[in-house]
């Protein structure tokens, strides 16, 4: 379990993390999403005990990340974004070293190493030097090293960074396999990756949490609109016909190449179905309609909208939405 309570981090004048709170239960795969500089990596560094929060509390399995740093680190498997390795070491040599660092007894070490070599498909390169491995294999070695002590909490920063499409698919299925009863945090700035792998998404921007919930929940927060294509002499005629409707809050129009006009109509509430009133209004105005369909905002456009706006200059954080 990972829990952050009102965590702030300042670097001099820069307020990198602004009052972030979340709680991740065992068995959950949580994707942390956000543009570069959103405060994701700083938050991860505070969880892994690489830096303390300026204020607030970070805990892993109920242990404080600052006061009980060594115990917290014993429970963490961490794959950093850059996946740094010692180029002169062999794959097995490196895994043996990591096993030793995590206090795995000599009698259990070989079994632990074999297990992660199997899991991460490394058996063909065990004696190779890390410097001579391809990027895909290096990434797997980093993942194997993070798993060597079978940690209850796993933090993967951009785990598919630099992999080719088939390797990305393999890594994704490995991540799903690994979940089990582990707490898993997956950091990424690639939306489809998080959408496909994670049970829950936390969107970071400007050091604060902009959204937090299941992919479906996030989609339900997106704008629901109705797309209409009608044959009208001028777009204004269409707008004036629809503006009178009680449920409509906004209309955007665009002229199409073939002379028709496409209108994107936003309703005041998501629950009211505006299709029928719109169809009637068009009939009353003598406008021919060739398309009328509800449209949901994609996760991608919702995400872009969420991370766009800068926070208030006061630095007060908006409360993150809860699922």
């Amino acid at each position, binding site marked *: 379990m990972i829990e952050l309570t009102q965590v702030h981090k300042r670097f001099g004048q820069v307020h990198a993390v602004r009052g972030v709170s979340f709680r991740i239960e065992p068995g959950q795969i949580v994707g942390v999403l956000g543009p570069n500089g959103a405060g994701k990596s700083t938050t991860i560094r505070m969880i892994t005990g690489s830096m303390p929060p300026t204020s607030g509390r970070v805990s892993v399995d109920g242990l404080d990340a600052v006061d009980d740093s060594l115990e917290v680190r014993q429970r963490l498997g961490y794959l950093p974004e850059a996946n*740094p390795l*010692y180029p*002169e070491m062999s794959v097995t040599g490196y895994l043996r070293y990591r096993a030793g660092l995590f206090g795995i007894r000599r009698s259990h070490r070989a079994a632990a190493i074999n297990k992660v070599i199997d899991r991460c498909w490394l058996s063909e390169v065990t004696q190779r030097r890390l410097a001579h491995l391809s990027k895909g294999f290096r990434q797997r070695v980093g993942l194997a090293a993070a798993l060597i002590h079978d940690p209850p909490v796993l933090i993967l920063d951009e785990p598919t960074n630099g992999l080719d499409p088939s390797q990305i698919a393999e890594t994704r299925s490995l991540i799903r396999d690994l979940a089990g009863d582990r707490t898993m945090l997956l950091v990424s700035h690639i939306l489809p990756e998080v959408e496909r792998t994670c049970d829950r998404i936390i969107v970071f921007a400007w050091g604060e949490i902009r959204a937090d919930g299941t992919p479906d929940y996030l989609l339900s927060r997106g704008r629901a609109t109705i797309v209409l294509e009608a044959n009208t002499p001028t777009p204004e005629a269409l707008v004036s016909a629809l503006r009178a409707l009680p449920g409509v809050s906004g209309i955007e129009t665009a002229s199409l190449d073939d002379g028709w006009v496409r209108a994107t109509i936003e309703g005041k509430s998501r629950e009211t179905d505006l299709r029928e009133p719109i169809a009637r209004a068009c009939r009353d105005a003598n406008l021919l309609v060739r398309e009328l369909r509800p449209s949901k905002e994609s996760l991608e456009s919702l995400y872009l909208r969420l991370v766009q706006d800068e926070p208030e200059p006061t630095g007060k954080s908006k409360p993150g939405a809860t699922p």
Partner: protein
Amino acid sequence: MTACWHIALREYASFFRTSIGWVVIALYMLLMGIWVARAIIPGEPASLRAVFQTSQILLLFVAPAVSMRLLAEERRSGTIETLGTSPASDWAIAFGKYFGALFFLLTMLAPTGLFLILLEVIADPDYGPIATGYLGVVLLGMLYLSVGLLFSSFTQNQIVAFLGTLFFFLILLLATTIGATTLGEPWSEYLRILSLGARMDDFARGVIDTSHIVFFIAISFWFVSLTAMSLEFRRWR
């Protein structure tokens, strides 16, 4: 404690996996060989006193070359992040790195045993001063490495770590030689306490002074501890 041991072993092995270990050993043997050859004079007693005295200067360059990469390389390559998020305390990291380098220094000295065999064949050496001479070299190496480790924790650049350590000891050398003679009391008295050369002369002569041994070990421990604190400061600032 086990983490410290694993860090030391990895560090020691990496000297030989990369070329630096072999290069340093070869250079050290070459330069020592030249000095030993000059020290053997027909008709004179078979003594390595001059060799041990000059090894003080030789180590001044060799030890920083050994210590420069210890933490600077971890910081440059980013492996400090995986090391720092493992359950190894900053003290285990500092002492592990230090012992890894110290084991290498001992390995580097081992082939000089060849010179002793040579000396045994051609003359009848007095082993007392030779043993204390070696003890002096090891203690001096311990001190050089501990300061080098601290400088290596300040930077990502190995050259900066090397030069920092070198200048530190050159300034100390100047202060305890020229400084001690030109400055009046009480400064010259304090500087004489810090003089490494005077202590090394005692070892080369065959004198074991416990205060010298305590001096080198205590100051080395102090610098390794400073390194651990420097790592802690970097983490928790």
